[in-house]
C-alpha cells in the first residue's frame, strides 16, 4: 500500500467524520470513549470491562440466534469452556511455561497460551455438540442446547477427571510481568482493561466481517426462511453447524476474558441461568441488529449497577429485567437499538441513508 493511498484513506476518513453522523464518526467517538475509560476510577474501569466481556458473549450468542434463528439456552457451556481452558493452563502449565520462557514474561505468555487453549477447547466441544444440536429446530434446539449446557455443568461440578475442582471452580491468578525493571500486573484493572478492549474490539470486527461476508449473508437468509434457502441450493444444516462453531468460538473468547476478570472459573458459568444472560442482553438490545447485543449488554450491566447503588432495591434487580424482557418481546421486538433508530429517524429525518445499520449494503461505499 503506497503512502498516497494511506493519505487518501485518512483524508477520506476525515471528511466522512466531518460529513455527519456516519459510521466513521461513530467509530471515532467509540474509540475515544474506549481510551477515556482507561482513565476512569478503577471500579468504573472494572465495570466497563465487565460490559465488554458480556457484550462479546451476547454478540457471539446472537450470531446463532439473530442470524440463523436458533435460540440456544446452552451457550454458557462455551463461556465456561474458554474460562476453564485458561484457568487450567494457568494453574497447571504456568510453572512449566515460566521455566521455558523465563519468569519475567511468563504471565503474558501463559495468558496467551491459555487463551488459545481455551479457544481450541471450545471449538473441540462445539464441533460435535453443534453437529448434533442443529438437527433440531426451535423449541427442541433450545432444549437440547440447554441439556448440553447442563450436562457440562454437571460434569464440571462432579469433576470425574479431577481438572475442574468441582463446585469451587478454578482460581485464576494472572501474575505480574517483569521486564527490565518495569513490572506490570496482568490482572491490574487498567492493564486488563486494555487487553480486554483490544480483544473485544478485534473480535467484534471479526464478527462484523463474518456477518457481512457471503457466509453471513446466507445466515440472514436462513433466519428469514430456511426452506427457501434450501431451495436455492443451500445446505442449511451444514451452514447452521458452521455458524454454531463460529458463534461458540466468539463466546469462548469472551469466556477467556471472563476468567481473568472474575479471577475464578466457576461452574456457574455453564449453568443455564448464565446462558440466559446472553438471551436477556440480546433481546433487550434488539436481536435483528448487529449492535443489539452490545447495547443490550450495556443496559444490562449499567442498570444493574445503578440498581446496586440502592441496597434496598439490589436484591430485586432480576424483577426489573424480567419485566423489561416481557415488555420488549410483547411490544417492541426491535429492542433498544430499534428504539434508537426510531429516535434518530425522527431527529435526522428519513433521508439519512441508514449509516449505522448492520446490513451488507452499508459497505457498498468502500468497494472501489
Amino acid at each position, binding site marked *: 500500500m503506497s503512502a498516497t493511498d494511506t493519505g487518501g484513506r485518512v483524508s477520506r476518513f476525515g471528511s466522512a467524520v466531518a460529513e455527519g453522523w456516519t459510521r466513521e464518526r461513530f467509530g471515532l467517538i467509540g474509540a475515544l470513549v474506549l481510551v477515556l475509560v482507561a482513565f476512569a476510577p478503577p471500579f468504573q474501569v472494572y465495570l466497563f470491562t465487565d460490559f465488554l466481556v458480556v457484550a462479546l458473549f451476547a454478540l457471539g450468542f446472537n450470531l446463532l440466534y439473530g442470524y440463523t434463528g436458533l435460540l440456544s439456552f446452552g451457550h454458557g457451556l462455551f463461556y465456561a469452556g474458554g474460562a476453564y481452558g485458561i484457568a487450567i493452563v494457568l494453574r497447571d502449565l504456568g510453572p512449566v511455561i515460566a521455566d521455558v520462557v523465563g519468569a519475567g514474561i511468563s504471565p503474558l505468555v501463559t495468558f496467551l497460551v491459555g487463551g488459545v487453549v481455551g479457544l481450541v477447547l471450545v471449538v473441540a466441544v462445539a464441533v460435535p455438540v453443534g453437529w448434533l444440536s442443529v438437527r433440531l429446530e426451535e423449541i427442541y434446539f433450545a432444549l437440547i442446547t440447554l441439556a448440553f449446557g447442563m450436562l457440562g455443568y454437571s460434569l464440571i461440578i462432579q469433576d470425574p477427571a479431577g481438572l475442574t475442582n468441582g463446585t469451587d471452580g478454578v482460581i485464576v491468578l494472572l501474575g505480574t510481568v517483569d521486564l527490565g525493571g518495569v513490572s506490570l500486573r496482568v490482572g491490574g484493572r487498567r492493564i486488563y482493561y486494555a487487553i480486554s478492549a483490544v480483544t473485544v474490539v478485534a473480535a467484534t470486527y471479526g464478527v462484523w*466481517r*463474518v456477518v*457481512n*461476508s*457471503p*457466509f*453471513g*449473508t*446466507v445466515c*440472514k*437468509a436462513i*433466519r*428469514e*426462511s430456511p*426452506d*427457501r*434457502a*434450501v*431451495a*436455492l*441450493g*443451500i*445446505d*442449511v444444516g451444514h*451452514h447452521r453447524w*458452521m455458524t454454531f462453531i*463460529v458463534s461458540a468460538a466468539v463466546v469462548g473468547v469472551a469466556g477467556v476474558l471472563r476468567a481473568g476478570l472474575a479471577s475464578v472459573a466457576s461452574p456457574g458459568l455453564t449453568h443455564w441461568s448464565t446462558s440466559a444472560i446472553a438471551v436477556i442482553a440480546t433481546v433487550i438490545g434488539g436481536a*435483528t441488529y448487529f449492535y443489539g447485543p452490545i447495547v443490550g449488554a450495556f443496559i444490562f450491566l449499567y442498570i444493574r449497577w445503578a440498581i446496586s447503588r440502592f441496597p434496598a432495591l439490589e436484591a430485586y434487580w432480576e424483577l426489573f429485567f424480567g419485566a423489561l424482557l416481557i415488555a420488549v418481546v410483547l411490544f417492541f421486538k426491535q429492542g433498544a437499538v430499534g428504539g434508537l433508530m426510531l429516535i434518530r429517524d425522527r431527529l435526522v429525518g428519513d433521508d439519512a441513508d441508514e449509516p449505522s445499520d448492520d*446490513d*451488507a*449494503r452499508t*459497505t*457498498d461505499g468502500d*468497494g472501489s
Partner: protein
Amino acid sequence: MTTVLKTEDLRKRFGELTAVDDVSIEIDDDKITSIIGPNGAGKTTFYNLLTGVLQPTSGSIWLRSEGGGELADVTDAEPHEVAQAGLSRSYQITNIFEGLTVRENVRVARISHEGTRLDFRSRATADESVEADIEELLDLTGLTDIADTPCDTLSHGEKRTVEIALALAIEPNVFLLDEPTAGMNPTEVTEIVSLIRELDADLDATFVVTEHNMDVVTDISDRIVVLAEGAILADGSPEDVLTDERVTEAYLGSDSV
C-alpha cells in the same frame, strides 16, 4: 428436443393414501409444461418429490445436469443438492427473505450459485462479477427500481416477482413455478404472464408451471399434464386436453363438492 426432467413410476404413499401413483413423465426443454388438476390431485406432493423435500415410496427421478450433460438420478438427493443440480422452484405461498432487501435476496441466491456460501472472510459485496450478475437479473425481472427496498414492505405482486427472480438467480435448468399468479389482481397477472413468456424466450431454463387460473394456463402452456388422484389423467396440447371429457368431469366433479 431434449428431456431435462424425467420421472419413472414415481409413487408416494402416506399410510393408506397414495398421493402420487406411478407417475412417469418426461419434460422437454422446448415447451412450457403446465401441470394442473383439482385440489388434492397430488400436485404439491409431486413438486415436493421432485425437489427432494419428500422421499418417494418407489420410482425414480432424473435430472439433466447443468450444461447439457447426461440425465442423473436425483431420487435420493437432499433438497439443496437437487437445487444445486439445476432444479429451481417458486412457492405457491410467497417464500422469500422478507427481512432483506430485493437486492440482498438475489445476492443470497447468487452466493449459493457461485459456491461461496462458506466464505466468511471477504465482503459479500466484494465480488464485482457477482454484483454485475445481480444487476443484470434485477434488470431482467424489472426489479431495479425497488432493489434497495426491504421485501416486507413490497406489494404482493412485487413479492411474487422477487420469488421468480430468486429462483432464476441459481440459473436452473428446470424451473418449477407453483401457482405464480396466486392471489394476484388482473393487472399483476398480465404482467407476470408476460414476464414468464419473456423469460422463457431469453433463458435456457425449462419452465414447468402449476396453475389454477385456466386463462393463464391456456395462455402460456405448450403442453398440459392433468393429474387426478395422484395419476396422470391426460397429457397433450392445450386444445386436446381442455376438450377431453375426463378432464372436465374431474374438475366439475371436484368443484361440485
